[in-house]
């Protein structure tokens, strides 16, 4: 342990007590600490009133996304040493309403997730549980990347379209829609198209690509959306040119 310290500038907001401010805290420096460790040091030993979400501290529960020096990041994966000598500015994720300190309201996302029907849809009358559906490693590989989303919301904070259009379904939810559309076991693609192809769906995306840049799990939501656009455009022309063919 050394005597080195680092300064945190933390966004504070109490709805029952005035507007937002930044508060500075001096915390010990450890070269293997992540920003979340520093925040926990503050909460544990300096100021218990600092409010933020966290749980697994191993980058998989998706709770601890915040803006670290202006960039959306999982604070359990953002090392303090990468921001030396500091100070480190910690803010709630942008584009979301802030409820308190570093806690944002993600209910909007929860509704959008619900809208894209993120589950397998089957035509079977009854679920026969005597055997698994077959799926080859190649078929799995088609959608696997899009199934890695931890719902951490960094992509929503990085997306300038979300910042202007509230109704935009957004990167993570659209990537999950594409995840199910590409799953060989799924038969519900048509049910999802209304949501995906509406104005607030994929066409709202201008391919800024920042969502894929900040994604800690390399899901590449931008890629998922462009693929959906391409498929949508191809489908549209197919139907235009072959009006006699029934929509599958």
């Amino acid at each position, binding site marked *: 342990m050394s005597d080195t310290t680092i300064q945190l500038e933390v966004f504070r*907001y109490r*709805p*029952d007590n005035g507007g*937002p401010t930044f508060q500075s805290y001096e915390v010990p420096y450890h070269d293997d600490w992540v920003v979340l460790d520093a925040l926990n040091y503050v909460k544990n030993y300096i100021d218990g009133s600092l409010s933020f979400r966290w749980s697994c501290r191993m980058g998989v529960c998706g709770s601890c996304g915040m803006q670290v020096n*202006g*960039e959306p990041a999982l604070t359990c994966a953002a090392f303090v040493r990468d921001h030396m000598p500091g100070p480190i500015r910690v803010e*709630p994720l*942008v*584009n*979301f*309403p*802030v*409820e308190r300190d570093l806690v944002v*309201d993600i209910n909007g996302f929860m509704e959008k997730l619900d809208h894209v029907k993120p589950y397998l849809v089957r035509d079977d009358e009854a679920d026969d549980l005597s055997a698994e559906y077959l799926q080859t490693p*190649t078929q799995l*590989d*088609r959608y696997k990347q899009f199934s890695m989303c931890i719902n951490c919301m960094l992509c929503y904070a990085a997306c*300038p379209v*979300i*910042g*202007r259009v509230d109704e935009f379904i957004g990167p993570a939810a659209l990537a999950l829609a594409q995840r199910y559309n590409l799953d060989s076991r799924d038969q519900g693609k048509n049910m999802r198209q209304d949501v995906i192809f509406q104005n607030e769906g994929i066409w709202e995306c*201008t*391919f*800024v*690509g*920042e969502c*894929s*840049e900040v994604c800690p799990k390399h899901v*590449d939501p*931008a*890629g998922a959306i*462009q*693929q959906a*656009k*391409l*498929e949508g455009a191809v489908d549209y022309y197919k139907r235009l040119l072959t009006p006699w063919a029934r929509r599958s």
Partner: protein
Amino acid sequence: MNRPLDRRLGWTWWTRNGSYFRIFLREATSAFILAEVVLFMLLLHKAGQDAETYLAYRDFLWHPLMVVFHLVALAFALWHTISFFLIAPNALPGQVAGRRIPAAFIIGQQFAGLAAVTLLLFLWVAWVGAT
């Protein structure tokens, strides 16, 4: 008691960081391409009129300031094209016949296509000029 705070980026989003600004600029390059197309259409229009009008317009296009404008437009067009090529692999479904296509291959194919089309155009212009 709850009083959620709105911290959306709003219309100045593109000033927020360097990468947003570059994307904004990239989209803005389409204005130069539009201008070049308008200039070209005017050229066609003038070509259908008498020689004097046509030559006056051609001299206008060769004015040093206009040449600078063309070069800027060319740079922007190339930048737009290259950045488009580089992100294209993300937009294409990743598999053909069960195998993942390497991004480098897709990017390479586009540059090869661009080179081929450019070469053909040059050859055609040269051929037209020769006959």
